[in-house]
């Protein structure tokens, strides 16, 4: 006991911080005493460790020291705190029940906002998580080209086959490279008695699975690329042919060539490639010298870098290499390019403007960002709303605040009380939103063709995130009302005099600016929705220069049909239901071939870009294209077959012929496709000029177009049916088909359908904007409604006096509504330039677009004003109709 060793003082400090003063003294005394004994017993080191351990065990709460007879101040504060929280919730609950309509509006607004937010967040998360499952994905890059030709510079995902062989050889940074070739046509697959056309097949280098290790349902990747008869198919495809059984080793034929199924892979919905089947690249039989080409851009090329390589230096080096070695080769052609590298994770979202990228599942970062902003806006508006409604309601609770303050509530306590009320509301809204989201997600999946799951219970991050969001929204929405409420002067409110901003002439700028912001956003969205709807309608209804109704469209199949296309055509025409038939390549809504045409300028031959439509004598007639000069191809003129061209108006301009009539008889040359001799030119005269007609979506301009007769390229058939005879026409076409190609099933569609298909994304955008505009306007109206209610409440006495003095109801309504009309007008002024800018930007993507007429903005403004007036007048009429006795009686 003589040892007076001192234990570490910082531990004492720690104890002192932990414990009430009273307990600390005795505990520390005990500890010191024990410490002295421990040092004697086991030495200082051990004693110190023991001391530390004992201190830590005091972290658990000790029961209270004995109760003194008279409760101290701290006893009160402790006991009251929890009781108060309970009381807060009780009061909040009572308020909710008492003001049912107000609570309903609040919860409705917040729920709408939160639900929209949740759904958009799920969508955005899904869009942003593409390709994240691929291991070492941060080292994988896709190469795209910046192609420059006489029309400007475009990005293109198509790359030459030579890239993949050159890169790993010449650049040590590159670990491996991969080529993908999309198999363009729909191919006929047969297994057992199943015959189906499949698309979405690719031919790949053997490195494919090193880049993208897809998971396999059956089989493996080993040896797939050694055996030229092996094929790997997707699970969906396997089920189409083999049902649920294991298809490994089974035979399946592609275009009559037999293959053996070696593996069944599972498509990952988060993978930018959704595939049906995979073949080794050499199956395509592309000759070696063609694979050495620097100009043929039909492959997608991916590279994987070595771990420490940097992409920017590689990009510069590779571009220099291309400038030095490839640009001289390309001198003769009408284009040149520079390669760029794109991180794998950007492929999905940042390629929306790429050409030749129809293999990848593409999103659009602009839409994703716009949606994110809209989601935040809606949430913000909903919060603003709450602020407005709650502040309006605060007058009715002024007495409560007065009483609380008189009894001794501090301002901090009041703020906590009111914020906890909004947090409670936010919780109710969030719960409803979560349920709604669960219900809406399946619909969202159908709409977006995605497989989004709302993994609330399986994702450990989501629940805490939602909790934080809820509390955040509650605090954000509740802070200002809480500040206002807690600022009431008890004496004034209890006397019945003081209202929050009853100082004459003072404008409640915060609430007003909230309404302005809300309405600006609403106007912005109304304008956007109107513009998008008009543009989409325009896309669907614009006169394309062809008659696309009642045209049946299908590709020819089988040698017999290709060889005897004339007979096939005549057989089709035999029925009275068919009015005309055209066979060719390059029909509207289908693929068209880009190529060159050669004209003679000042004695020199000049090659220019032109779309080549390979047609027959009935093309113009079948599609109802208008001739503006010259004549159509005619069977009577034997030269039409080999030496005649029809061009469109754009071609007249671009080729420098001046007027359509002037163009007639001009000579053109064309490099014949697939000719033995590469210099073989077809020479012919322009015999006719047609009005410009659209063969692509309205995103693209009508280009210089040349129509000519070229049977070698005949591939597709368009059958014009007579009105209202679909039911008899289809069996006839089917019967004729079966006569020529019984081995192949026919696969037809209607021409107008393919045009509808082109604008699917825009159709979706249209419906989305509709929904969001409605939500935003609705939620904004809730806010305005609250503000009007507040104003009416505040000016109750004024209205009473005015009425007593003889004011009419109309003049009172006008008086009360005037203020809000002003706010909406300001909102209009703010929103119009923004909306103009945003929509003008969006429309730039379309080659053919509507004008941004001033009346769209005017209409949106009038609409917003009307909606606002309607909302406000509900309150102002109510206030104006009130019996003045009621408001003036008590003073």
């Amino acid at each position, binding site marked *: 006991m003589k040892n*007076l060793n001192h234990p570490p003082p910082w531990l004492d400090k720690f104890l002192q911080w932990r414990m009430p003063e009273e307990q600390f003294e005795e505990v520390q*005394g*005990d*500890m*010191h005493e*024990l410490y002295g004994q421990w040092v004697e017993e086991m030495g200082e080191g051990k004693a110190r460790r023991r001391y530390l351990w004992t201190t830590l065990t005091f972290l658990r709460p000790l029961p209270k*020291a*004995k109760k003194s007879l008279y409760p101290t101040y701290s006893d009160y504060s402790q006991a009251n705190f929890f009781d108060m929280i309970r009381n807060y919730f009780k009061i909040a609950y009572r308020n909710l029940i008492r003001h049912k309509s107000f609570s309903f509006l609040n919860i409705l607004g917040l729920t709408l906002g939160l639900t929209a937010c949740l759904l958009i967040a799920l969508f955005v998360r899904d869009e942003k998580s593409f390709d994240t499952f691929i291991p070492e994905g941060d080292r994988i890059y896709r190469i795209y080209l910046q192609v420059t030709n006489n029309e400007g510079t475009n990005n293109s995902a198509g790359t030459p086959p030579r890239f993949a062989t050159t890169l790993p050889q010449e650049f040590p940074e590159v670990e491996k490279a991969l080529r993908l070739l999309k198999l363009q046509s729909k191919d006929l697959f047969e297994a057992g008695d199943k015959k189906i056309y499949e698309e979405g097949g690719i031919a790949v280098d053997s490195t494919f699975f090193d880049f993208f290790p897809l998971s396999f349902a059956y089989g493996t990747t080993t040896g797939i690329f050694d055996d030229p008869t092996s094929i790997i198919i997707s699970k969906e495809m396997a089920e189409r042919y083999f049902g649920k059984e294991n298809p490994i080793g089974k035979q399946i034929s592609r275009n009559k060539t037999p293959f053996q199924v070696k593996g069944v892979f599972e498509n990952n919905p988060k993978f930018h490639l959704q595939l049906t089947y995979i073949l080794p690249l050499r199956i395509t039989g592309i000759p070696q010298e063609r694979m050495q080409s620097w100009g043929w851009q039909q492959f997608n090329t991916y590279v994987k870098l070595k771990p420490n390589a940097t992409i920017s230096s590689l990009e510069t080096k590779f571009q220099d290499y291309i400038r030095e070695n490839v640009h001289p080769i390309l001198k003769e052609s009408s284009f040149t390019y520079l390669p760029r590298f794109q991180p794998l994770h950007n492929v999905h979202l940042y390629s929306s403007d790429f050409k030749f990228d129809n293999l990848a599942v593409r999103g659009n970062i602009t839409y994703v960002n716009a949606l994110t902003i809209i989601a935040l806006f809606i949430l913000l508006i909903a919060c603003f709303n709450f602020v407005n409604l709650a502040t309006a309601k605060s007058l009715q609770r002024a007495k409560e605040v007065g009483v609380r303050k008189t009894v001794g509530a501090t301002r901090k306590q009041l703020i906590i009380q009111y914020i906890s009320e909004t947090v409670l509301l936010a919780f109710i809204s969030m719960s409803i939103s979560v349920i709604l989201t669960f219900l809406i997600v399946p619909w969202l999946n159908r709409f977006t063709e995605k497989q989004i799951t709302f993994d609330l219970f399986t994702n450990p991050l989501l629940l805490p995130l939602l909790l934080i969001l809820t509390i955040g929204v509650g605090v954000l929405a509740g802070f200002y009302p809480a500040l206002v409420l807690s600022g009431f002067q008890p004496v004034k409110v209890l006397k019945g005099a003081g209202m929050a901003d009853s100082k004459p002439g003072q404008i409640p700028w915060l609430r007003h600016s909230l309404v302005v912001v809300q309405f600006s956003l609403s106007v912005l969205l109304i304008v956007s929705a109107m513009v998008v709807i008009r543009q989409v309608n325009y896309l669907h209804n614009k006169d394309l220069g062809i008659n696309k109704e009642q045209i049946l469209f299908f590709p020819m199949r089988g040698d017999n049909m290709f060889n005897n296309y004339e007979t096939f055509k005549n057989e089709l025409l035999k029925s009275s239901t068919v009015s005309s038939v055209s066979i060719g390549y390059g029909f509207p809504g289908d693929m068209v071939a880009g190529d060159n045409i050669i004209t003679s300028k000042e004695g020199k031959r000049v090659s220019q870009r032109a779309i080549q439509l390979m047609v027959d004598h009935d093309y113009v007639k079948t599609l109802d294209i208008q001739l503006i000069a010259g004549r159509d191809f005619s069977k009577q003129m034997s030269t039409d077959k080999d030496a005649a061209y029809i061009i469109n108006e754009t071609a007249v301009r671009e080729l420098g012929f001046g007027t359509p009539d002037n163009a007639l008889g001009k000579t053109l040359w064309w490099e014949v496709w697939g000719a033995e001799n590469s210099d073989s030119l077809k020479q012919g005269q322009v015999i006719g000029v047609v009005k410009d007609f659209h063969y692509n979506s309205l995103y693209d301009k009508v280009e210089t177009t040349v129509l000519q007769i070229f049977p070698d390229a005949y591939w597709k058939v368009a059958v014009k049916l007579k009105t209202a005879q679909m039911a008899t026409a289809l069996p006839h076409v089917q019967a004729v088909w079966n006569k020529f190609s019984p081995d192949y099933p026919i696969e037809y569609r209607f021409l107008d359908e393919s045009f509808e298909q082109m604008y699917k994304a825009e159709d979706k955008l249209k419906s989305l904007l509709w929904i969001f505009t409605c939500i935003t306007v609705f939620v904004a109206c809730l806010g305005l409604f609250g503000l009007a209610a507040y104003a009416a409440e505040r000016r109750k006495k004024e209205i009473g006096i005015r009425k007593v003095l003889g004011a009419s109801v109309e003049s009172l309504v006008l008086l009360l509504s005037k203020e809000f009309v002003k706010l909406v007008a300001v909102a209009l002024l703010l929103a119009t330039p923004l909306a103009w800018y945003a929509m003008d930007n969006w429309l730039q993507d379309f080659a053919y677009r509507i004008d941004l007429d001033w009346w769209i903005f005017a209409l949106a403004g009038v609409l917003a004003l009307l909606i606002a007036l309607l909302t406000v007048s509900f309150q102002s009429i109510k206030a104006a109709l009130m019996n003045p006795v009621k408001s003036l009686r008590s003073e």
Partner: protein
Amino acid sequence: MNRNYLGEFEELVLLTVAHMHGEAYGAAITQDIKERTGRSVVLSAVHVALYRLEEKGLVSSAVGGATAERGGRRKRLFTITTYGMNILSEIRQVREDLWQLISKPIQPAVL
């Protein structure tokens, strides 16, 4: 709740307080229990037990003098209350009764 209920450790602490006759405080009780039972007791556990016993009214406490080895800190001395004594004897009675029942030679279980 049965007012007589005492945890095993609480009972041990209460007994210790009883036999120390007014000289019982945290550190002393900790040492005493350690010497008697050989089990290593954490100080905070003793404190928790003491306060809980006080809450139940089984012990009462007063702040006592300071000694040098305590760094000049005062100790809280615990004494057992009459009620505490009663509880202890009640528990003892129950145990005695039970022992009576098995005081006949204990038959080891036959395997």
